[in-house]
């Protein structure tokens, strides 16, 4: 047991898998939550997981460069912008529909 611990080293997969798990949680949430803000929250999880992927790849595979990190940096900004617009739209829709359940916004179909 101790031996195992002794030989234990952090590798990239150990970060990637939780990140991926996070992404999939986000997917699950996005697919199932009916509250649109909850959907946005799930989306944040997904975006966050992507960011983490970039950082992990950067750190493990190309140490010394900063491309992944910069991508994450910008991605955070983009995520913020996305969220802002999305929330604006959702609130707007809420004003009209008095509801933020995504299921109620299905007037147009087929």
């Amino acid at each position, binding site marked *: 047991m101790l031996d195992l611990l002794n030989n234990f080293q952090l590798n990239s997969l150990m970060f990637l898998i939780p990140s991926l798990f996070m992404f999939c949680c986000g*997917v699950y949430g*996005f*697919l*199932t939550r009916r509250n649109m803000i909850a*959907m946005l929250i799930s989306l944040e999880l997904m975006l966050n997981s992507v960011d983490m992927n970039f950082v992990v790849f950067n750190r493990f595979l190309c140490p010394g460069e900063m491309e992944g990190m910069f991508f994450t940096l910008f991605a955070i900004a983009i995520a913020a912008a996305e969220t802002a617009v999305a929330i604006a739209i959702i609130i707007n829709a809420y004003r009209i529909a008095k509801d933020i359940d*995504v*299921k109620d*916004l*299905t*007037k*147009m*179909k*087929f």
Partner: protein
Amino acid sequence: MEATLPLLILVLPLLMFLFLGLFGKYLSHKWSGIIGTLGMGVTMVIAYYTAYTYFFSGDFVDAAGNRLQYVVFDQQWLSLWGDLSINLGFLLDPISALMLVVVTTISFMVHLYSNGYMRDHHGVYETGFQRFYAFLSLFSFSMLGLVVATNIFQMYIFWELVGASSYLLIGFYYTKPSAVSASKKAFIVTRFADLGFLIGILVLSYCTETFNFMSMTSSSVGEGLYHVDVTSAEGVKTMIESRAGQMFLGGSIMTWALVLIFMGGMGKSAMMPLHIWLPDAMEGPTPVSALIHAATMVVAGVYLVARLFPLFMVNELAGGAALDIVTVVGALTAAYAAIVACTQVDIKRVLAFSTISQIAFMMVSLGVSRGDVGENLGYMASMFHLFTHAMFKALLFLGAGALIHAVSSNDYTAMHGLRKHMPITHITFLIGCLAIAGIIPFSGFFSKDEILASCFGNSMVAYVWMSLVAGLTAFYMFRLYYLIFWWKEHKVHEGHHAPKDQPWTMTLPLIILGVVAIFCGLVPFSEMVTWNGHPHHAHINWTVASVSLAVSIVAIGIATLMYRKENSLPAKMRSLFPRLWQGAHHRFYFDELYMFITHKIIFNSICKPIAWFDRHIIDGTMDAFAAITNKASYAIRGLQSGNAQSYVWVYLLGALVLGGGTVAIIFLFF
């Protein structure tokens, strides 16, 4: 001979047709009748002149005394495969000269006659009088074109044209449904036969590599002059070199060609089993029946076989059965028609069956014509009979027309005992009957005698068979004669005029034809019309003649016994052979058979299913494509549920399948 004059024979009727057809309605009835008749008269004169020149000028006889074929002109009309081309031309040879005379004579008589016939008793012209003359002219043109054809395709062309003009004339009373259906029937039945003719032409032209009669059967002996000579003819040589002798379905290809062509002749000449249209064709005006369905068009089949006779000869020599088929068909038809004729009520139908029977005589005559029987005596006899028959049958028909016109009915039951009311008609009709019965010295005697002699020389069976038929002929003709003119006194219904002789326009042709029918048997036919132009001197075979004469007289005697006075003998006879009588009366159910085939089988079992198949299966398939597309469109509409989450779900799955699926495919298969 100048080409223009014979050409006029064709051009005049054509012009008459166009003139009357296009401008007829601006002319008065009277004038269009006069113009039509005059036109035909001029044509007749020219035709006589032409025939006279041909036969008697001596320009068309070679050193050995053979009559030659003379091509007046021959113009390419449509060139086809290789050297094959359809020409339009004008061929003078014994039979075409003969036919020119026959056609123009009868046609003129009919034109003249119609002036009277196509009016009612008050002299009012029938509607469509101009049209009638236009069609008559069209028919004359087509028939003349047919007889002078230089090649088989020209013949086919005019063959079709006579069919069409026959169609138009039979259906002249187009508001009468029976006339309409009769005309349709005539056209379609002959058309069916023409299919055989056409295929026959195609086969023949493949074998001989020509359409041209001269190339097929003759050798050139000078400019425009040809001598019928099967041994040196180009077409025959080619045919023998080609594999025309190859067997195909039980006959050589050449036999097939000739039989198929003969099928065309069968249709036109109403040979059994393609005869059914002719009795119905009597729905047309009676002059038309006289012209087309007695004297001219219906003998076109005989003419066709005669025209190709050298080829039939070659075939016969090569062991082919074409001529035998002609004989058998002819013999069967002759007997059949004669029997049926004995039972008909409608006088025109009796005459129609008599025509069928007589034409069958000509066919048989051609069929039994062999080189070993007096230099193809049958050929000459056939043509001779064609000539005489045309005259006396036209006479009979015109006489019947006069009767019908007088009593306004076709049935002899409405006539009886007319001999006193219509003496001219009576006499001329009697002449006709005697002629057809073959009583010496009327024309029919000579021609029929030659035919029977020819049969006699060839086959005893045929001879006996045909003699009996000749006897039947005499019987039914005199049955008809007595039933019309004797039997009992004519009853004049109140308010009706008594029937009387018709105006001169109608009686004059009767008289003329009567005279001709008496004397035309004396024409020295054998010296003028033989298959290869070589004249030979026929003499009456008195054995045959006396036998046939005896048979005829006996038959006439029986007829006299049965029908001269009203009695119950016919009814007794009828009840003696009820089956036979019924069968004959219903023409042995040929029409019913055809009705069954065309209506039940072709129309109901082929056409309708095909139409159904087309609308429902083929079109249904096309519509099904549309329907499937539409269905698919509805089926997948759930994809667009309106819920953003389901969109995303589809999106996700799409992306995963796109990636994962591709990976799986690549790693599994490559």
